[in-house]
């Protein structure tokens, strides 16, 4: 799970989008892939826990499979999307970010992540 694979290129394309503050990749074990510091560790652990809780909610009310999680605060939005069986990408945006554009590029980035994963397996 704790792969050394760098998702740097795909994250760079996400970070270039207007309104994106930062993005990171984490394992579903709640541990960040790449740079590990206090902030990325907290973000990874809490994201994975939130995903688990929301997935349980959608499952228990028979409301389909969880595809994406979006959290709104007065600072901006946090978009969370799983890819593969073991990873998640987390995107932090500003309040005025073009969410439609971010979601389109995020979908593309997720495909790139998948290719990278297949290549290392």
């Amino acid at each position, binding site marked *: 799970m704790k792969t050394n694979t760098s998702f740097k290129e795909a994250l760079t394309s996400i970070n270039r989008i207007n309104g994106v503050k930062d993005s990171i990749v984490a394992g579903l074990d709640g541990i960040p892939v790449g740079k590990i510091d206090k902030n990325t560790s907290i973000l990874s652990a809490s994201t994975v826990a939130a995903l*688990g809780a929301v997935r*349980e909610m959608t499952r228990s009310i028979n409301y389909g499979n969880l595809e994406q999680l979006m959290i709104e605060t007065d600072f901006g939005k946090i978009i969370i999307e799983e890819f593969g069986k073991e990873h998640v990408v987390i995107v932090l945006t500003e309040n005025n970010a073009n969410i439609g554009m971010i979601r389109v590029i995020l979908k593309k980035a997720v495909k790139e992540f998948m290719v990278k994963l297949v290549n290392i397996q």
Partner: protein
Amino acid sequence: MSEDMLKVVVFGALNAGKTTFVEKLSGQKLFLKGEYENITTSFDFVQMEQGNFLIHLFASPGHRRFSFMWDTLATGMDGAILLIDSTVGITPVDHELIKFILNYDVPYVIAVNKNDICSLEPTNVRKELDISDEIPVINTSAIINQNLVNVLDSLIQTIAEKNIV
């Protein structure tokens, strides 16, 4: 085991002392403390260094209502610590948690907590939970920081031995 990192999850029944355990063991303010009115409703999280490892230390919610978090927290764990409340004794939740941990096939250690109030004999705990002599059972008191490092060191050693074999 990779990159000198270990994910360790502390499990236990409600009020066994999991949050105090990770607070005292890490010796620092928790990065995340997911509680409401002193009951952990999501999870606790902190990082600490021990024996050349960076430990990602999680504590699970003990309330049965939040047990759906157990699987999420257990994903990718390298080892587990099961905390037993010695003032209550072995409960059905403890039996359930042993089965749960065994399903993940990771090394684990049992900490019989609140030893400062009441002591349970490790041999009795072992017998009641039907676990082998290889599993370390250690009396602890999270509140006075008794044997907490021993529990973690013991787990790290068991994980290291498993990875050598």
